[in-house]
């Protein structure tokens, strides 16, 4: 096929992808608007605008500025972070069962926080976000070091260095299971820790406050920058390590950048919101039929879908069980998973 015949088709594809990106962005904005206006106290859109642009200290202004906006901002950050991290993780391990927690991040954060409750007698987890983040980073470094060991099934392709998909996934599972077991032991021996932990593990973006948003923002931004830099290399890697090496890729470097991005993104999200495994695991599978396998498009689609879904689920969780709320993680799974199963049934799945 000549170059002149290919160019218009590529332009058409690009236009379609860009318009899809715009649609997803619009969906996210709509979800954010809902998240700011809907809740125990419904706020008209005009009042919300008033609170955002020229606050005068009315009740609605205070509700919006001190509660709804931080909550929405955290939802957007966490949704984007987990969606992108999940797509990266599945790309690097080439395993549809991979989620960002596979690097040990979730369980590392959980163990650090639960231990801090017992050691420091804390009654809530928010003061220990830094500890959670440190736990997430430590666990992920351990998994990466262990997964970088060459050998075992799938690891016999010699040379290069860097982790292979199978050893990385298995090492992550083993470390996660170990940390989860230690966390379970702590909460079973300490009832106060259990009382905090059971709410943490269902995941929530409520009542975190604006400070938390600013704490995690730098990590998410750094992670997104690394993810963007990682996308072309990941495309080459998905052709197989040998082909990628032949194309001039530094495989160990690509893997290291990818893992660093996943750690920063999911570490920040998990430390702030608790375990929201659904976003990282399922959202990439939702995005893949729209984007195809090109990670330069898959990553932004996953991020936007993740954030929009997280906000919508949070809004639904606020209104379904008045006067209480359902945790966002629970709503996400209850609404998102059936939709996901339907999607898997309807079309032939895009394989990794």
């Amino acid at each position, binding site marked *: 096929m000549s170059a002149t015949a290919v160019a218009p088709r590529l332009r058409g594809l690009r236009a379609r992808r860009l318009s899809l990106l715009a649609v997803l962005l619009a969906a996210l904005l709509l979800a954010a608007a809902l998240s700011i206006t809907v809740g125990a106290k419904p706020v008209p859109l005009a009042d919300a605008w008033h609170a955002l642009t020229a606050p005068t200290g009315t009740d609605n202004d205070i509700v919006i500025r001190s509660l709804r906006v931080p909550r929405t901002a955290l939802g957007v950050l966490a949704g984007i972070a987990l969606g992108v991290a999940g797509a990266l993780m599945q790309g690097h391990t080439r395993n549809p069962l991979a989620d960002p927690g596979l690097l040990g991040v979730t369980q590392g954060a959980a163990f650090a926080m639960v231990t801090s409750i017992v050691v420091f007698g804390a009654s809530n987890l928010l003061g220990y976000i830094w500890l959670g983040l440190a736990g997430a980073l430590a666990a992920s470094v351990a998994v990466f070091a262990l997964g970088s060991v060459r050998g075992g099934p799938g690891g016999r392709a010699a040379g290069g260095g860097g982790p292979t998909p199978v050893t990385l996934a298995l090492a992550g599972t083993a470390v996660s*299971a170990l940390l989860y077991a230690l966390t379970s032991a702590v909460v*079973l021996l300490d009832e106060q820790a259990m009382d905090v932990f059971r709410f943490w593990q269902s995941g929530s973006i409520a009542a975190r406050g604006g400070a938390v948003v600013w704490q995690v923002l730098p990590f998410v931004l750094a992670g997104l920058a690394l993810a963007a830099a990682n996308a072309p290399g990941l495309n080459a890697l998905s052709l197989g390590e040998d082909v990628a090496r032949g194309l001039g890729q530094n495989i160990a470097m690509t893997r290291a950048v990818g893992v660093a991005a996943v750690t920063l993104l999911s570490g920040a999200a998990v430390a702030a919101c608790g375990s929201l495994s659904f976003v990282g695991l399922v959202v990439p599978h939702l995005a893949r039929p729209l984007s195809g396998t090109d990670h330069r498009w898959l990553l932004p689609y996953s991020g936007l879908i993740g954030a929009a879904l997280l906000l919508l689920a949070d809004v639904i969780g606020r209104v379904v069980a008045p006067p209480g709320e359902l945790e966002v993680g629970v709503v996400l799974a209850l609404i998102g998973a059936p939709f996901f199963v339907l999607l898997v049934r309807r079309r032939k799945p895009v394989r990794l």
Partner: protein
Amino acid sequence: MTALPVRVAGLSFRVRPRGVAVTLAGLAVLVLLMALNMRLGNISMSLGSVVTGVLDPASPDHFVVMELRLPRALAGALVGAALALSGAITQSVARNPLASPEILGVTTGASVAVVAGIVAAGNVYGGVSGLLSTLGVPALALLGGLTGAALVYALAWRRGLDGYRLVLVGIGVAAVFTNVKFWLLTIGDVDDTGRAMVWISGSLNARGWEHVTPVALALAVLVPATLLGARSLDALRFGDDTVTALGVRMNAARALMILAAVLLAAVATAAAGPIAFVALAAPQIALRLARTGRPPLLSSAVVGAVLTAGSDLLARTAFSPVELPVGVVTAVLGAPYLIHLIWRART
């Protein structure tokens, strides 16, 4: 020589000496661990009195050993074997080392049913020690497990069963079940939550013959059945097109093996709760010890039994007099060993 052909009554098998050695060594370790476990209890016994207690009906220890301690030790070994075998089949069918009966909907379905039961009933039926725990919880677990598996299977079936679609549907259904479980844990009283957490972690505390018998029966029927079906698992390692071309009736073979995996996991979970990590780790450990291409069925079962029996021993002694649920310890023992095997395999 890595494999010896054996022909019996028109059937031919390949026997790998290394696999046989792993299985036999595992059985020896298992017997030792069970004997050590049976020493523990309100009255500590010597190994000698445990052995005479089993063999000699006139021994003063006979009742304690046979009615209280042996059932618990056996329950651990059999449940571990059943979970590991189920995991080995699931990983072979899904062609994925991260797959476990969890994606078949069994353990997560059982967890939801039991947690709902415990949270709803509270102390009404006497909590952990009353009717609810001896009859209700295993029944709920069996019902929930089989319902979950049927749901996953029905949703994944679409003009045949695609291994990849099964995994994806399994993820979705497990996500629903897991989060419903989390939600149930947050609405309950914290005491109920604690009791539910013990069951979710998998516990062998106070298991008697009534827990052992169903698992033993399931293993007696399903181990020979799965060993006969092992050859179709070898074929299933290749892609779907290759399998069809090799003349394996793919859907039938896969459906039967998955049914076996579901039944094994459901019965094991009903007896001891969803003991974590055994189904995932034991096949991967056995695969590395026996050096085979896919998880070896019999060696996986033995490794699972050893892992669970050893974990129970540690769970009872580590924080004595507090007994941890066995499922908390399986990962503490199994994960470092799996990590060690991955580490050792470096070239």
